[in-house]
């Protein structure tokens, strides 16, 4: 964990609900699956966001506008300074995967972009399955295309396979050694039921984000674990849904 002041380098909408914010800070580092806690003006608690990319002192988050804090974030302008806790949590363990499958649902695709880039760097082209409710909700298509083989599914069939992520997975049935998933809980639950050869990035309402309050503890097969500290990434077989 680090507690830092970052400078907003850009903050722009990608579609009707999802925004991209780039934050600058010297020697910023992060690993795929880790998250930051961003201080939002006039909000008491910081907001957790997965790192969608991090290189050359610039960290990217992709955020969906859902409530007070994310609404206020859209008003933050280039050059503004924001406080953030960085390098939070334990990210994906991608070291042993040579045929990875990435599964993202909705805004859950965010951390997978960073992960996909890491694989691409190692010369591995991951299969990236992105599930959305409809074509309008898609973001970062070109970015994902550059770093992997993208498969799309939408609930209403407006693009790609019509159906949810698991149906799409069964339909496309790509080969994989480990899958890496982030998205709504029902999707993660379904995936875990389908195969335990995976890693799931979970969400929880957080008090601190760095392990102090037990606000985010889930029960796992090996006892209670904190989403913010032992997670947010857990082995699929570990989580008790």
């Amino acid at each position: 964990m680090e507690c830092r002041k970052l400078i907003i380098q850009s903050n722009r909408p990608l579609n009707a609900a999802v925004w991209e914010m780039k934050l600058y800070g010297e020697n910023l580092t992060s690993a795929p699956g880790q998250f930051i806690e961003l201080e939002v003006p006039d909000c008491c608690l910081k907001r957790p966001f997965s790192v969608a990319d991090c290189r050359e002192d610039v960290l990217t988050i992709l955020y969906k506008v859902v409530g007070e804090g994310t609404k206020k974030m859209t008003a933050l302008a280039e050059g503004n300074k924001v406080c953030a806790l960085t390098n939070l949590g334990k990210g994906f363990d991608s070291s042993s995967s040579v045929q990875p499958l990435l599964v993202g649902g909705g805004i859950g695709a965010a951390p997978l972009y960073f992960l996909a880039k890491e694989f691409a760097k190692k010369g591995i082209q991951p299969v990236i399955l992105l599930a959305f409710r409809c074509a309008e909700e898609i973001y970062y298509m070109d970015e994902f295309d550059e770093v992997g083989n993208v498969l799309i599914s939408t609930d209403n069939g407006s693009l790609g396979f019509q159906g949810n992520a698991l149906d799409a997975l069964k339909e496309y049935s790509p080969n994989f050694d480990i899958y890496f998933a982030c998205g709504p809980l029902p999707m993660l639950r379904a995936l875990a039921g389908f195969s335990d050869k995976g890693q799931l990035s979970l969400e929880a309402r957080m008090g601190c984000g760095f392990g102090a309050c037990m606000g985010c503890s889930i029960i796992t097969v090996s006892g209670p674990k904190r989403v913010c500290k032992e997670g947010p990434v857990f082995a699929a077989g570990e989580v008790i849904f």
Partner: protein
Amino acid sequence: MDTSVNLLGYRLDNPVIPASGTFGFGYEFAEFYDINCLGSISLKGTTLEPRYGNPLPRIAECPAGMLNSIGLQNPGVQKVVGEELVKLAKVFKKKAIANVGGSCTEDYVQTVEYFNHADNIFAIELNISCPNVKCGGMAFGTDPTVAGGLISAVKKVCTKPLIVKLSPNVTDISVLARAAEDAGADAVSLINTLLGMRIDLRTGKPILSMKAGGYSGRGVYPVALRMVYQVRQAVNIPVIGMGGISTAYDVLEMMMAGASAVMVGTANLIHPFACRDIIAALPGAMEEYKINSLETIIGRAHHA
């Protein structure tokens, strides 16, 4: 500039103590800063058996604070004494305060007994006021007779000074404070969290799985200050003040209300360096108000 205070025979370098439940068992904060700057630490509430606590969500935001319904998650006293305190001793050279929770007298008593032999614990803080524990938890904190019975029972076995932590969710907190004093408490600490609620407009349901939870943070400060003032008048044992403290000025004000030491809770969650920063700011704040020794301002508001 003398920031030290005497608490129950133990001299603290300064009156700032992280509040129970907001600082874990301390050692994890040692990754962030040297925690030996702290006056002491009140450790995470500990029960006889391990507890997972309440289902998620356990956290909700408020305009000036937060709700929690953790429900005393902890690994149980055996593991706390055998593992957590050992880890703490490696990075914290001072003594800490063990915070004990429970739902029946026998549990409290046995848990306290475990801590009797813990060298790096200088006092026990008996949490009779956790709003997040079912069955009996609330009655201990709101009924002076029930509270008195529990405290007497614990006092009989407890070999360390006993601090009783009071709930603010009562009509008259001084009645409970007096009951604690009469039953043998060596000090009282207050306030625990106020009962609060938030509702998710999207779902129309309370955000917390437990519906209501404990409200803490800046928004409770005026209530906490009033209760510390009131309790200081009602009892002759030391009062440890907490509730919404987030600056060195808040510390001074709480001490003037009657606190011999203070605890800082939610501020740690909002800013991991809060306690360190408050301690660093104390001398400057004292200078601003021409205070040479912190001990001299304890209860000043009662005779100024």
